[in-house]
């Protein structure tokens, strides 16, 4: 703990006007040679990889992080525009199947330094203590190798580093946030009004958008384009919350470098480095340890593509666990029509949430629950809502002309982990000739019951706030699992410290290690789990 600036200087390493990190950080960045044996090479510079990078650099390790995408300069690379932000997403080919295929790309997949936190909304709730032992408690899901209490100090650390703004939080383990809640827009105002009328507790936050100046980072200007990358530098992403401090402590970030496989020494069984492709050339970075942080699709894909004599079915896949138990949250969005003008695109999409329905309710036929949050689709996303009602042609244009009158809320339903919801390799290859990921997803009965219940609550809130019509679109949000933590190698891929069961010097430090997902947006938990893994790694050295 202690003062943030003593642990992580990132916010103070931006230029005084807050426009960008000090240029010297990149211009004078330390650069390792491929044949330097670094202490640690990290694959992926998102929530998990960047947090690990910053912690290890601070501990004095020689560490380099590779990312398949670019090292962003927000002022020139990002725009206040929906269609113009496609390059923020993972656009390389992927195949989706199962009875309920889950769209990827803009919905949940980032590319480039900062990862998908570059385009996440900014909600950063903690998981509840119950999420860590749903198997023992509710007979569904899985138990984590550690408890909420073990993660709690890391939650607090990361909340202070981002920092998080919100009201005192009454749910799960009650806690407060380092910054006061933001003012809300018309969309959030109606949420509060409807929830209040229905006796549902709603709170403002928690969002990782600085409310006030933080270090050299500016105040939010409420422009609403959080999902298109924050040009203001008010919304937290590792690009501004962890990478600057990592670079300042001698870490290297090697962008535009696609890792193709992990090399294993057939004699010792240990990882020796990573093969990657940069500027069309195949290269190899030697390393004493390797950490994979490519998130729930690319991490399993990389493991499955890393075959060897020792691991003919993919790295760490002795027990056919790689890619399994991948989860998404059911995320139906319900919108309501008001006579007044809501103009929901004004202000950040993340404003108000309720976790009143998060825990298992013994009076209901289903286990676990859902949360509800304000969302605010921009025109292209809103057109999907309208089309989901079956409208096209003249009816679509007419509905769209009514945009200013609608408010919209989204649920996050805790879909349960299932072994057949998984990543495998498709026959299709990318431009490097690497087989792409195939992601199959099918809902179970409990999942479907949660969707219906959540939609019902959203309709109640909107109707109580005065909506004359409600419409719902079925969708999914977030990804976790695919290389989960477990007590042993037959039930998962890594132990509670993120170390793979099969290779002693190989870690996984991203969302793919989560055994359950709760009804919370996962970014904060991914960072906290990575921070904990870093702490354990630092203590183990020697």
């Amino acid at each position, binding site marked *: 703990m202690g003062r943030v600036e003593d642990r992580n200087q990132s916010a103070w390493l931006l230029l005084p006007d807050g426009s960008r990190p000090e240029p010297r950080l990149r211009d004078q960045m330390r650069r390792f040679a491929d044949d330097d044996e670094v202490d640690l090479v990290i694959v992926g510079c998102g929530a998990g990889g960047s947090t690990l990078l910053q912690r290890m650099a601070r501990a004095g390790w020689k560490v380099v992080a590779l990312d398949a995408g670019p090292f962003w300069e927000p*002022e020139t690379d*990002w*725009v*206040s*525009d929906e*269609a*113009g932000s496609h390059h923020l997403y*993972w*656009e*390389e*080919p*992927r*195949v*989706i*199947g199962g009875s309920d295929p889950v*769209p*990827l*790309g*803009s919905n949940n997949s980032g590319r480039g330094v900062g990862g998908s936190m570059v385009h996440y909304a900014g909600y950063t709730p903690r998981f509840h203590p119950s999420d860590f032992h749903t198997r023992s408690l509710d007979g569904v899901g899985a138990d984590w190798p550690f408890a909420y209490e073990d993660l709690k100090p890391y939650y607090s650390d990361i909340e202070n580093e981002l920092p998080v703004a919100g009201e005192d939080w009454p749910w799960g383990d009650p806690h407060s946030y380092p910054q006061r809640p933001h003012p*809300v*827009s*018309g969309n959030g105002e109606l949420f509060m009004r409807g929830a209040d009328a229905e006796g549902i507790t709603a709170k403002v936050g928690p969002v990782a958008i600085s409310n006030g100046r933080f270090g050299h980072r500016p105040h939010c*200007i*409420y*422009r609403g*384009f959080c999902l298109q990358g924050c040009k*203001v530098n008010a919304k937290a992403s590792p690009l501004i919350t962890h990478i600057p401090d990592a670079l300042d402590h001698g870490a290297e970030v090697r962008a535009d470098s696609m890792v193709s496989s992990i090399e294993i020494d057939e004699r010792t069984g240990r990882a020796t480095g990573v093969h990657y492709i940069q500027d069309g050339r195949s290269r190899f970075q030697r390393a004493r340890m390797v950490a994979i942080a490519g998130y729930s699709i690319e991490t399993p894909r990389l493991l499955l593509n890393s075959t060897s004599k020792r691991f003919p079915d993919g790295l760490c896949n002795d027990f056919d666990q790689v890619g399994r138990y991948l989860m998404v949250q059911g995320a139906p969005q319900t919108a309501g*029509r*008001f*006579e*007044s*003008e809501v*103009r929901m*695109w*004004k*202000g950040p999409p993340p404003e108000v949430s309720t976790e009143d329905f998060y825990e298992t309710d013994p009076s209901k036929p289903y286990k676990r629950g859902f949360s509800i949050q304000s969302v605010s689709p*921009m*025109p*292209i996303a*809103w*057109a*999907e809502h309208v089309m989901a009602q079956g409208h*096209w*042609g*003249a009816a*679509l*244009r*007419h*509905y*769209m*002309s*009514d*945009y*200013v*009158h609608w408010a919209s809320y989204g649920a996050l339903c805790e879909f349960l982990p299932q072994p057949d919801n998984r990543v495998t390799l498709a026959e*299709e290859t990318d431009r490097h000739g690497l087989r792409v990921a*195939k992601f199959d997803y099918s809902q179970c009965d409990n999942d479907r019951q949660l969707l219906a219940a959540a939609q019902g609550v959203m309709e109640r809130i909107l109707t109580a706030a005065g909506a*004359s*019509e409600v*419409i719902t679109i079925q969708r999914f949000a977030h990804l976790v699992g695919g290389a989960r933590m477990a007590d042993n190698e037959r039930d998962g891929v890594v132990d509670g410290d993120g170390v793979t069961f099969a290779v002693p010097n190989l870690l996984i430090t991203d969302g793919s290690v989560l055994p359950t997902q709760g009804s919370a947006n996962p970014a904060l938990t991914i960072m906290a789990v990575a921070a904990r893994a870093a702490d354990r790694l630092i203590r183990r050295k020697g």
Partner: protein
Amino acid sequence: MNQLPLDPADGGGRFPGFDVIAQSGHWDRATQSVVGSRLGLLPHVRFFTPEEEVVARALFDQILDQREEPRVPVFNMVDVRLAEQQTDGWHYESLPADAEAWRRSLRALSDDADARHGVGFADCAWEQQSAILDAVQKRGDDDWHGFPASRVWSLWTRYACTAFYSHPWAWNEIGFAGPAYPRGYKNMGVDRLEPFEVRDIRPHDDPARRDS
């Protein structure tokens, strides 16, 4: 020119005088350039063949009810995306990758038109085209020329709407103020507008209610 032709009975003219581009002086340069490029001349057609172009133009006119000039150049915008392989980052297992799915589904649409009316899709009357598309949509998850109809419908409408609703003329029609950086918003809250926003003159024109 800043308004698309749309009958008031179909939601046209709700925001009189509203022009998003009039505010573009308040946007950052990167955004000005990206949005501005949609108003200028678009690249030559690179992806679609001339035969596909004829069908695709008619399809986009139908999906977005663009019956006369001026139109948002949806066809050209989709052609740019496909030529540059700017996909959504996924495709359904039951469909080929987007480029191939587009070619094959346009061919299937031609086949439907030919089977029903003995002419190409674009040469059918407006109502005939609408009926052909209506039949595809109503098939839901059932097979249509070897693909689940709903997946093809999703492909067509996703590309069409992404193009149309990225265009400032479409924003004018729906009252959306567009980019807001570095200015941001000062007047948040129900019924609170910025000085440059224009209020809906027909707040009772609720299309949902009109349907029922």
